[in-house]
């Protein structure tokens, strides 16, 4: 693997260079004007100027918006009367334009790999993956809400990143993690990193303590019925207000709704983020609702992440970014839920 040395000024120049050929995005630390074309909420387009500033901890919005944008047009049709193709559904054109997302944290980079498991056969997600490069920055500092190490990640991880920047005394060393990353640095006059800096990073990674990830892994072997019937859900469901905020800011929540939208006779079928916190999510047409109670929906979210998803795909569907811990209006903390679940006999 190629490892390069980059100064802050060179990083600036790189971003300007990329933005000539591709769409380049960086985290928006202030609110962006609404409804700019091809916008990505929580992210700003980089168009040649402005240095990259990153906040400590995860970016304000997760990267799922680039792989699973909302809305995503699944198909289009016309409903114009007397049109020979009235009601005929057509495949939309998929954008092939490269997008480079700069400022991604290791937790979010892992989330793309996890979401790829259910989306392995999804043509839209895969097309977006092909056209998106992730330029990430490992974390020197963590927030009190960060728990990536518990979920099998690392603040210094480069998994899932096309280019991984790690801070050194006078700049960065950059690990090139893929062919896409290689393409981004091709033609740029960058020096290879010093051997001492590479060893220093490896040493820092070595020191990273993998917290209680092995303990958490014992959840996977637990009997579903015991976890499902645990007494912890009742009080948790009572405090949860089912606002769904956790599911929208979550990088690994990936469920969607599909709806038809018609404007002046031109229609499209779109998919967009849904949330299992909402009663409509599981409501039958008959009026029957298998998860009609709040406690059932709260339980579904946590068990999906910590039991159903691992049962199906192996890993937990959580990267420990802590956004839900930060933003929950009633202070529900998934780390406490995990501890409570581990204590279930």
């Amino acid at each position, binding site marked *: 693997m190629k490892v390069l040395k980059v100064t802050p000024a060179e990083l600036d120049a790189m971003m300007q260079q990329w933005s000539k050929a591709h769409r380049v995005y960086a985290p928006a630390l202030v609110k962006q004007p609404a409804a700019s074309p091809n916008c990505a909420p929580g992210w700003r387009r980089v168009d040649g100027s402005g240095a990259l500033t990153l906040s400590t901890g995860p970016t304000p919005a997760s990267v799922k918006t680039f792989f699973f944008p909302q809305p995503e047009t699944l198909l289009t049709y016309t409903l114009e009367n007397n049109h020979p193709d009235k009601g005929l559904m057509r495949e939309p054109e998929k954008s092939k334009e490269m997008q480079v997302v700069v400022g991604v944290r290791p937790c979010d980079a892992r989330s793309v790999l996890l979401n790829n498991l259910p989306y392995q056969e999804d*043509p839209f997600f895969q097309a977006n993956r092909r056209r998106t490069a992730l330029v990430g920055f490992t974390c020197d500092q963590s927030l009190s809400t960060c728990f990536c190490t518990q979920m099998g990640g690392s603040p210094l991880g480069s998994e899932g990143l096309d280019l991984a920047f790690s801070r050194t005394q006078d700049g960065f060393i950059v690990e090139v993690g893929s062919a896409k990353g290689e393409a981004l640095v091709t033609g740029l006059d960058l020096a290879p990193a010093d051997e001492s800096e590479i060893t220093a990073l490896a040493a820092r990674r070595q020191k990273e303590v993998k917290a209680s990830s092995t303990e958490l892994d014992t959840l996977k072997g637990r009997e*579903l019925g015991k976890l499902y019937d645990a007494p912890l859900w009742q009080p948790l469901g009572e405090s949860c207000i089912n606002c769904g905020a956790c599911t929208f800011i979550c990088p690994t929540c*990936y469920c969607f709704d599909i709806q*038809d939208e018609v404007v002046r006779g031109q229609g499209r079928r779109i998919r967009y983020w849904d949330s299992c916190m909402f009663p409509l999510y599981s409501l*039958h047409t008959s009026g029957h609702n298998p998860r009609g109670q709040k406690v059932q929906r709260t339980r*579904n979210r946590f068990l999906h992440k910590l039991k159903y998803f691992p049962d199906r795909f192996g890993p937990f569907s959580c990267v420990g970014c802590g956004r839900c811990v930060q933003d929950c209006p009633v202070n529900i903390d998934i780390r406490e839920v995990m501890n409570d679940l581990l204590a279930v006999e």
Partner: protein
Amino acid sequence: MISYMPYPVRIDDIVVETEDGNLKTFKLVFENETHAKAWNHVPGQFAMLSLAGQGEMPIGIASSPTEEGHLLFTVNRAGKVSTALHQMNIGDRMGVRGPLGNGFPVDTAMKGKNIVIIAGGFAVTTLRATLLSLLARRPDYGKITFIYGARTPGMLLYRDELKQWAQREDIDLHITIDREAPGWDGLVGFVPTIAGDVAPSPDNSVALICGPPIMIKFTMPPLEKIGWTDDQVYLSLENRMKCGEGVCCHCNVGPTLVCKDGPVFTRSQVKQLPIEY
């Protein structure tokens, strides 16, 4: 890769099935010959009926794979898409996406067995498909018992076919209605009672039961009493669905996805699941 594109079809015929007019059978013909050839389903599978401007709904396929050249769907008018479909006419264009789900094990667990089919209300649709498939390869199966109940004679689906099946000697047919009705000289009583009276032997047998949850609940005890086990009984679950391909998560019952792992499960499989269906 999965596809969210439905096959374009035209409505070739519409039959009003029930006296309340709420159930209609739609005969759909593919617009494109290659799609018709590519379509290949197993009884018990479902498909998304797709209406431009309205959306999609998952409906069990009522036609048997042996009926070539068209598909049948019997649809209850209940929600947004089904109401719009009920207003459509012969010749109109719509879409079908599928087939989806697993279907009944007609080629595996059911082969060589006595088959007991128990249906209540309009859940009979995929069981009609199943029965026709079994009849097309009649020697592959043992005795076939078909128990079907509806509220009134006018709420029975596929009445012409029921008459034909009644003529056959290779089906043990029991059609029942909930209470006495003028002009009805057949069986009267709820499906669980009739199933108890018929008492099909569990030996070398498989049962397929589709109907309202309350019917399934009360049908099991009389069967268990004469020795039926949960592994011999197949049920079909339904849940709200969006993609039908195991991605969107809507239909999950615990770790199980009704659209992909089901909709057909053995009763022992269903018993392992949380009651979220």
